[in-house]
């Protein structure tokens, strides 16, 4: 059966938003958050890394996940037990597979193969029974649609009767190796080989041990009249054993689909629980650090973009305290140009928005006291790369090739975070490229948040008096103190002399926000 906790149905993949995964993880310092969620559980880490960078675009699904997260937060300990149970069954199954692989690596007789499959089957079916029992004892606490229907579907797909029948059938098969008989039908095949072999039934007689016989009697029944041929031929007996073993292997193969089904079930369960446990961990640990959070509001008109007390979660976790928060209230703005002093909190600002948007679109709560935004079908980041500041054509080539990859995927309903892009060439050339790229995207409707030092660019854009553009600036008090607040502000006609000097003399000298 399908475990549908992360997705409501099977069309899931179609509703993912596109992101430039590896770049955005690095640009937004996501790893700090992911490790915080994982609490040193490597599987949770890998799971949340995938889920966080695979935002979804369906509002219903986001709400669906929010409900499940609430369930997990409330029942954290029992959900953790469920997760550990799934992990244990998977490990047991893997160990069994490994062990049999080692023992039988050379030539695996059909008999041994059947035994292996039986072993695996027992582990999975027993594991399933335990899981089911545990869920029976905790399912009263579920309130989310996801967890409730998960439990209902489980009871429906694998009824107690079904599980009993399977267990009975496994027992029969086990007995076959200890006694009893098998009947097979066959017809004359090509060249008198046996053809179309079908197993008719297994006669189980668990009380009698099978003994090896030297003398084999072969009987032919013809209508009522019966011929008996006694054969002093133990080779025929060996052949018969071989045929029987093949029959067992064949039956075991019929189980393999079911084995696969159960393995996939546990893998999916384990994976999906891992994400929600990560979310629950995050919530608990944020509370310990007094980091505020809220459920985001999805703006249906796709125009409102506003927040109160938004902060950069990765910075908060890193410093173990709430960083500077920002507020914003906008309607129908497509382009944000953020300028201002170095070390003024511009990159942090960009990051706080990127993180909140990603978290919202994977169903999580967001680091703010309120956050209202639309759903994007693509989220991309393009941050300047500090490691190679050399001003050469190779750098520009690298930068533009990254931009090119984004342009291959970006849509009109995407969000693009630009942090000092096009700064790896001269200001004049950089401005030219920026004007082309930003204007083309802006006119097509893509939402852009852009931190830039390209003064000419900012000036030109401001003078165009675009309806859907806003200009923000890092606050700097008259005495030069930086508050790290980003405020709505008309761009300075002249940049601060010293800053400009720094900008020109040592391009890219703004220190990393995170030490």
């Amino acid at each position, binding site marked *: 059966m399908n475990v549908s906790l992360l997705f409501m149905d099977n069309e899931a993949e179609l509703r993912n938003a596109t992101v430039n995964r590896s770049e955005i993880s690095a640009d937004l310092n996501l790893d700090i958050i992911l490790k915080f969620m994982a609490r040193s559980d490597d599987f949770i880490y890998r799971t949340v890394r995938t889920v966080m960078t695979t935002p979804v675009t369906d509002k219903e699904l986001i709400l669906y996940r929010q409900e499940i997260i609430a369930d997990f937060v409330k029942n954290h300990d029992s959900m953790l037990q469920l997760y550990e149970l799934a992990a244990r069954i998977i490990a047991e199954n893997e160990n069994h597979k490994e062990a049999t692989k080692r023992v039988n690596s050379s030539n695996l007789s059909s008999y041994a193969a059947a035994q292996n499959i039986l072993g695996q089957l027992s582990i999975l079916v027993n594991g399933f029974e335990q899981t089911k029992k545990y869920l029976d004892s905790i399912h009263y606490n579920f309130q989310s649609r996801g967890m409730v229907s998960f439990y209902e579907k489980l009871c429906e797909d694998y009824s107690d009767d*079904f599980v009993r029948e399977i267990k009975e059938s496994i027992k029969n098969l086990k007995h076959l190796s200890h006694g009893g008989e098998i009947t097979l039908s066959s017809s004359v095949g090509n060249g008198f080989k046996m053809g179309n072999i079908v197993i008719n039934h297994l006669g189980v007689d668990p009380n009698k041990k099978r003994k090896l016989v030297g003398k084999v009697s072969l009987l032919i029944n013809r209508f009522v009249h019966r011929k008996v041929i006694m054969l002093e031929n133990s080779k025929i007996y060996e052949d018969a054993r071989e045929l029987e073993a093949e029959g067992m292997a064949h039956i075991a193969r019929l189980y393999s689909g079911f084995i696969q089904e159960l393995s996939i079930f546990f893998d999916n369960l384990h994976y999906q629980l891992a994400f929600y446990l990560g979310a629950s961990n995050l919530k608990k640990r944020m509370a310990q650090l007094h980091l505020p959070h809220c459920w985001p509001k999805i703006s249906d008109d796709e125009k409102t973009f506003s927040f109160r007390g938004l902060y950069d979660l990765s910075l908060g976790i890193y410093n173990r305290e709430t960083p500077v928060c920002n507020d914003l209230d906008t309607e129908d703005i497509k382009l944000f140009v953020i300028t201002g002093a170095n070390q003024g909190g511009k990159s942090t600002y960009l990051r706080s928005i990127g993180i909140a948007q990603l978290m919202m679109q994977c169903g999580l709560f967001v680091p703010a006291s309120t956050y209202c935004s639309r759903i994007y079908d693509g989220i991309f980041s393009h941050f300047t790369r500090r490691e190679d500041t050399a001003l050469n054509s190779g750098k520009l080539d690298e930068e533009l090739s990254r931009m090119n990859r984004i342009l291959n995927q970006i849509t009109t309903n995407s969000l693009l975070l630009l942090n000092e892009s096009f700064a790896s060439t001269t200001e004049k050339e950089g401005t030219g490229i920026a004007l082309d790229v930003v204007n083309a995207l802006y006119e097509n409707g893509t939402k852009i948040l852009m931190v830039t030092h390209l003064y000419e660019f900012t000036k030109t854009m401001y003078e165009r008096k675009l309806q859907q553009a806003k200009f923000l600036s890092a606050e700097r008090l008259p005495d030069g103190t930086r508050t790290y607040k980003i405020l709505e502000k008309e761009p300075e006609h002249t940049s601060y002399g010293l800053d400009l000097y720094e900008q020109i003399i040592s391009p890219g000298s703004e220190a990393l926000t995170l030490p």
Partner: protein
Amino acid sequence: MAFQSILGRNGFFRQDPSDLVMPRFFQDLNLDQILNDLFSRYKLYDLRQFYYVKPDIDDVEYRQQVLKDLENEELHKAMVDFSINMRKSREYLANINQSEIPEQKRKWKLDAAFYYINTVLELYRVLGEGYINSEGLLSFRDWLGDYLKGAVFEGFRKDTENLIYEFSSMSYNIQIKRDHIIVNQGSNDEDYCGNLLALFKKTQKESYYQKNPFWEITLSNLEAAVLDMLKKLHPQAFSRLKSFDEKYDGFINSVIIDFEQEIQFYLSFCDIKKEMEEMGFHFCYPKVGADRFELKDIYDLVLARKNASQRKPVILNDCHFDKHERFLVITGPNQGGKTTFARAIGGIIYLGMMGLAVPASSASIPVFDSVYTHFATEESMETGAGKLKEELIRLKKMMDSSTRNSFIIINEIFTSATSYDAYIMGKRVLDFFMDKDCIGLYVTHIYELTKNDSRIGSLVATLLSEESQIRTFRIERREASGKGYANTIVEKYHMTYEEIKERIRR
């Protein structure tokens, strides 16, 4: 006219395998890379005997028609199945020699006969489904119809089917008990696996029958014991089997054997064609024997396949010869696509001559009797005079053996000579072939060779910009100069304002 061969209206002459020599131009045009792969995939049939031998010009269209018929998926699959089943039938015949038991030998023969009969009947049925329009397949079908309706085949078929029916109804079941085995006549209707599958609510018929653990062609002891019993139970059937064996021998018709082998020529080419088409490449049927030479949207098979696997784009080119033109001289930067272009054209001419489809969107080609190529041998360690000597020796052979109907491709010759010498020698080579009225391509870095001769057309491998050295791999008709066009990285990434607006669409 009565059916002769699917490869030629008047038959197809099979050369002795030991006489088969790979045409010289195969390696230069990279055709060996494509075909050797195919030859090993079809190693049961010696494809060399078909691909190394050029047909009569009259048979080009005869073959094109057959190939067009085989574009029909149903027919193609039927031909593949036909080949598989013919091989199966022969395999059963071969099993006869492996068996020691006379009854088993006879049964293998009976099974081979039954397989063969069904295979040819099925072939005839498919050929009557309305898929075929080609003269070759239509006349083969007529021949096949006559063969199948003949009294000889009809009697053979009846004998075989009756006997097969008799044996296939001898079913039995085996009970394996603790100390004895019981074999019963007739089959047991219980179905253990079916019940198990029902529990899982699954229907997976393909793994329904259990595998026979006795995979050898000879009989296991158990099977031999069962055979002994069957012999006692059905003496008449076994005596009829014996007389069947005495009566029929060598029942596989030689025309059908030839057809099976020769159809592989088309089936193997369909593999290449389909593989390329699945990657988005096109083919067309060339007009061979046209009075003009004109190719549109051509590409090189080997490079296209390689690029597609690396998700790199493939550039398409056009090529034509004006009425008075005899040679096209191709110049431009290294790695600019000149050699690939020449290879593509050579390959198209070869495939066209063979009566196959070509990698182009349209193609008109005059009749050529052969392709002659002269490519620098890369593995040759010789430089300077040694290399030049080697080149000239090869050139001399080419000059002697080519005719006025040959297509000539000369690629980067005389690179070890000084430019002036290379110019003078190149001029003479071109004059020689043009005086002979040959048509051809000459790839060189000496652009002066394109000048002052109305029989020479100039093609240039173009650059996007001189500074960036970005190659477009486009070969254009243009005055050779060596100058490109300026451009920036922005253009390389298609990031101008207009391009971005184009790119961001919903």
